[in-house]
């Protein structure tokens, strides 16, 4: 017997993590025109970086998150400078292959540095809060608070800063943005910073919600793509909406499917969207 209320709560928790990942994927897709296959593994790197500060310096997770976020953003920019920047002139599809290779390299690096075993941020048992028939773990509350903060930051950045507006302009209508004199290279730089920050937070929250394993990000990549496509590629607010829908759908699916097939549910939704409405809910780029 499944408790629908509990499934809803867990779906929102998962959805908020997917949303943060999907915003980055969606903006990269919108501005740089390729599906970034290394995004999940960038999340993994962010999660493990935070783990390092928690373990070595015994910092609380919110403090450890700060340097991890900065480092992950710098790694995202570095990946762009080393690999993607030079390939941009060729064809977007070559970038896709390159990002697939990057994904593999990042995952291998995580294994080399931190080993193949599972880790958790905090050992020991935390006492869950019981309310309205729900079991609310302190970690899941941290996930919701973290995601709420990030979504607010994203909104303020996109709606009220010049760079945020330029980014939206470029992913909305590339030609119009270029004629209007949007500084392309700076926008690309900030897109990677933005995506790196969000990926790191998403990874850390994912690590809080479950545990850290080298494949954690890769395994989340497909639902994130599904969320970005569902919301409309290049539409950050759509990605948030898409994240929650996919997260809820994946959790509700256990009502009628074995839980191993959660991933398949995200995939089926994505395929249906691609067939019925490829531009997504909030009419994204017609690709």
């Amino acid at each position: 017997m499944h408790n629908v209320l509990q499934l809803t709560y867990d779906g929102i928790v998962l959805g908020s993590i997917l949303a943060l990942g999907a915003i980055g994927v969606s903006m990269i897709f919108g501005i740089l025109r390729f599906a970034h296959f290394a995004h999940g593994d960038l999340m993994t790197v962010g999660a493990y970086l935070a783990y390092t500060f928690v373990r070595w310096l015994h910092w609380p997770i919110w403090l450890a998150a700060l340097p991890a976020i900065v480092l992950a953003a710098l790694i995202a920019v570095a990946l762009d400078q080393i690999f993607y920047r030079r390939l941009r002139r060729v064809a977007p599809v070559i970038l896709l292959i390159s990002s697939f290779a990057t994904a593999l390299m990042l995952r291998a690096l995580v294994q080399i540095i931190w080993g193949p075993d599972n880790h958790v941020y905090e050992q020991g048992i935390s006492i869950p809060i019981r309310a309205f028939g729900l079991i609310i773990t302190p970690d899941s509350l941290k996930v919701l608070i973290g995601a709420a903060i990030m979504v607010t930051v994203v909104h303020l950045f996109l709606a009220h800063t010049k760079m945020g507006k330029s980014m939206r302009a470029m992913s909305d209508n590339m030609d119009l943005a270029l004629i209007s004199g949007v500084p392309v290279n700076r926008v690309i730089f900030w897109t990677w910073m933005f995506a790196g920050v969000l990926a790191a937070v998403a990874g850390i929250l994912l690590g809080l919600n479950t545990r850290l394993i080298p494949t954690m990000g890769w395994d989340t990549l497909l639902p994130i793509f599904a969320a970005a496509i569902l919301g409309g590629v290049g539409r950050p607010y759509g990605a948030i909406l898409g994240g929650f829908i996919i997260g809820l759908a994946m959790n509700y699916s256990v009502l009628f499917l074995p839980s191993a097939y959660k991933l398949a549910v995200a995939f089926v939704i994505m395929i249906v969207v691609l067939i019925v409405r490829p531009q997504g809910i909030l009419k994204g780029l017609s690709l």
Partner: protein
Amino acid sequence: MNLAGFYHYGLYFLTTAGVYGILALALNMQWGLTGLFNLGIAGFYAVGAYASALLTTPPAAEHWGGLGMPMPVGVAVAMLASGLLAFVIGAATIRLRSDYLAIATLGIAEIIRLVIKNEMWLTGGVRGIAGVQPPFHTDNQLVMLAVVVVCLIVLYWLVERARISPWGRVMRGIRENEDASMAAGKHVARFRLESFVVGSAFMGLGGALYAHFNGFISPEAFRPLYGTFIIWVMLIAGGSANNFGAMVGTIGVWFVWTMSQMLTDLLPGGLATQAGAVRIFLIGLLLQVILLARPSGLFPERPPPLIGRRERKKHR
């Protein structure tokens, strides 16, 4: 290693390289010729392997099937099954940009692996299927190698013919400029779907041969790294759209990969796992370097000249 061991290892190496060669040629048809981005090679490869294994193994309690059919039936059904799967996926996504096909194929490969892992009644789950018979029920590795090589040669001949045929010309046209091909009256979506389905059916063939050669299959063999990524590296290193290059890339990358495995296997347990990750990192880096330094690969594409067949022979 003694001489006999070396001999057996050589046969193993060549047979596996042959199977990878088939996969690389199939991918070359999809990506090199037509520009279709298939990131789910492992899925079609797995479907082929399981289809043939389930049909040809003797009855077993651990999984469905065990119909004990002859190998050619298994191989044929394997190709059909992979082709059919490709048709369904392709019909949904082939009109969209290549990124979507990439995401969709990656997704289907992951889901196939989930199904194989979880549907014990059908596939035996993580314990896999054992006792897949080699061709002609002989243990002689040479026979297996011969079968793989014959398949490879026939496939090579087919894809070369396809490449220089009018069909191949349309494919290149679609790859280079979709709108122009459409303007020339070509049904772009149908041509792309044809290439995708035929290529995927050959991936199924590769999977079936792998199952019969290995004798045992499990979901582990169809992870994205071994089933998909390595084949991409082989094709890009050898040269996309060049079938000869794809063969050279296959042998070269497979040689480097197995040799490095032999080296890392000499390390003690824990270190060997870490060294495995180092190898994966390096093969990822190798692909990045090729993409940056020589994106057309060792043997770049040589489009067939627009002249008669007799003239073309002189150019060789």
